[in-house]
C-alpha cells in the first residue's frame, strides 16, 4: 500500500511540475499580448485627446455628443482605428470634462493632477484571480492653461486576449504536455536501468544481507560462549547421529 502511495505521489508531483511549466509559458504569452494591448490603448487615447482638443477649441459652448462622434469618424475613422486592436477593441470611449469631475458628477479614477490613479476601484476589475481591465487616460487642453479641459478615458478588457492565447496555442500546449510526459518516462527508464546494474553485482537484497550478517554475529557469539565446554566421545557421537537423523 505504502509502495503504491509513494509511486502515486511521485507521478502527481511530476504531472504538477509539467503543468506548472506549461502554465508559465501560457503566462508569458499572455503578458506579451497584454503589453501590446497597453501600448495600443495608450496610443489610441492620445489620438482621441488630440482630436478632442481640435473639436472643443471651436465648439466649447455648442457641444453635442452626436456632433463630436461624427467629427471623430470624419477625421480619423474611429471604426478602422479600433479594428487595429484586433480581438479586443475598446468598447467605450469616454470624454469627461474637468468641470464635471470637479463637481463630483463622475468617478473618472484620476489623481488630483489628472493622471490615472492605479489604485482606484473603477480602474480595476478582478476576475479569474487577475485584473482584467486596462484603462488608458489622456488629458486634453484647449488653451495654454495648466489644467486640462477634460480627459479621454479608454477601457479595454484583457479576457479576449486570454481566450485568444488559449485558442491559438491550445494544441501546442497539449503536444508540449505529451512530449514532456514522454521525456519524464524516458528519464524514469534511464534511472531504473542504473538501479538494475547495481543489483546485478549480487543476488541478495541489501536488507537480506544485513539480516544474515546479524545472524552470523549471533552464531559467532554463541560458539564463543560455548567453546570451553568439553564433551565426551559418546556425547559427540550422539550429536552427530542426531544431526544425521534431522537430515
Amino acid at each position, binding site marked *: 500500500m505504502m509502495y503504491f502511495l509513494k509511486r502515486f505521489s511521485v507521478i502527481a508531483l511530476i504531472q504538477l511540475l509539467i503543468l506548472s511549466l506549461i502554465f508559465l509559458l501560457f503566462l508569458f504569452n499572455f503578458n506579451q499580448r497584454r503589453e501590446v494591448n497597453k501600448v495600443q490603448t495608450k496610443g489610441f487615447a492620445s489620438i482621441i485627446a488630440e482630436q478632442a482638443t481640435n473639436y472643443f477649441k471651436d465648439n466649447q459652448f455648442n457641444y453635442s*455628443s*452626436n456632433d463630436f*462622434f461624427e467629427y471623430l469618424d470624419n477625421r480619423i475613422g474611429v471604426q478602422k482605428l*479600433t479594428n487595429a486592436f484586433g480581438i479586443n477593441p475598446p*468598447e467605450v470611449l469616454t*470624454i469627461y470634462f474637468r468641470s464635471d469631475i470637479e463637481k463630483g458628477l463622475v468617478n473618472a479614477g484620476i489623481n488630483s493632477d489628472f493622471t490615472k490613479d492605479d489604485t482606484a*476601484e473603477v480602474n480595476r476589475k478582478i476576475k479569474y484571480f487577475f485584473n482584467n481591465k486596462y484603462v488608458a487616460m489622456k488629458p486634453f487642453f484647449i488653451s495654454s492653461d495648466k489644467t486640462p479641459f477634460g480627459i479621454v478615458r479608454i477601457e479595454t478588457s484583457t479576457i479576449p486576449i486570454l481566450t485568444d492565447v488559449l485558442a491559438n496555442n*491550445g494544441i501546442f500546449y497539449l503536444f508540449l504536455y505529451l512530449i514532456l510526459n514522454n521525456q519524464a518516462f524516458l528519464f524514469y527508464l534511464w534511472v531504473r536501468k542504473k538501479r538494475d546494474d547495481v543489483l546485478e553485482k549480487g543476488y541478495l537484497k541489501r536488507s537480506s544481507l544485513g539480516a544474515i550478517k546479524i545472524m552470523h554475529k549471533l552464531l559467532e557469539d554463541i560458539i564463543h560462549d560455548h567453546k570451553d565446554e568439553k564433551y565426551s566421545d559418546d556425547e559427540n557421537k550422539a550429536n552427530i547421529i542426531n544431526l544425521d537423523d534431522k537430515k
Partner: protein
Amino acid sequence: MKFFLICIFSFSVLVSCDSFKAKSSISFYGPILETINEEGAIEYVGRIVNKSSEKVKNVTLHYVAKDNQDNIVEAITYDINSTEGNHLSANEIVKFKFSIRSNSDDTFNKEFVLKHD
C-alpha cells in the same frame, strides 16, 4: 486503443478552443462614445451594424451598470430601429443615442449586450 483515445482528446481540445471565437450577425460598429450631457446625466452615442446577408429583426441593446460589489445599479433595454422599421437590413448601419439616470459615481462596470430574434 491509446492512440485512438489521444486522437479523440486532441480533437475535442481543438473544437473547444475554436468555440472561444464569438459568432454574431450584429455588432457595434466602432466604439461607443460616453459623455456627460447638459443635465449632468451619462449619455451614450454609437452605431450598430448588421454583418450578415439577411434581415435581422427586433434588435435590442441591453445596458447594465454595476457598482463595485457587482450589484446592478441600472439596467436599460433600448430598441434599435432603422428608418424602415424594427429590423436591420443586410450590412445596414444604424445610430443610437440614450442617456441613463444613475449617477456615474456609483458605476464601476458597464456592459453592452446586443440581442435579436
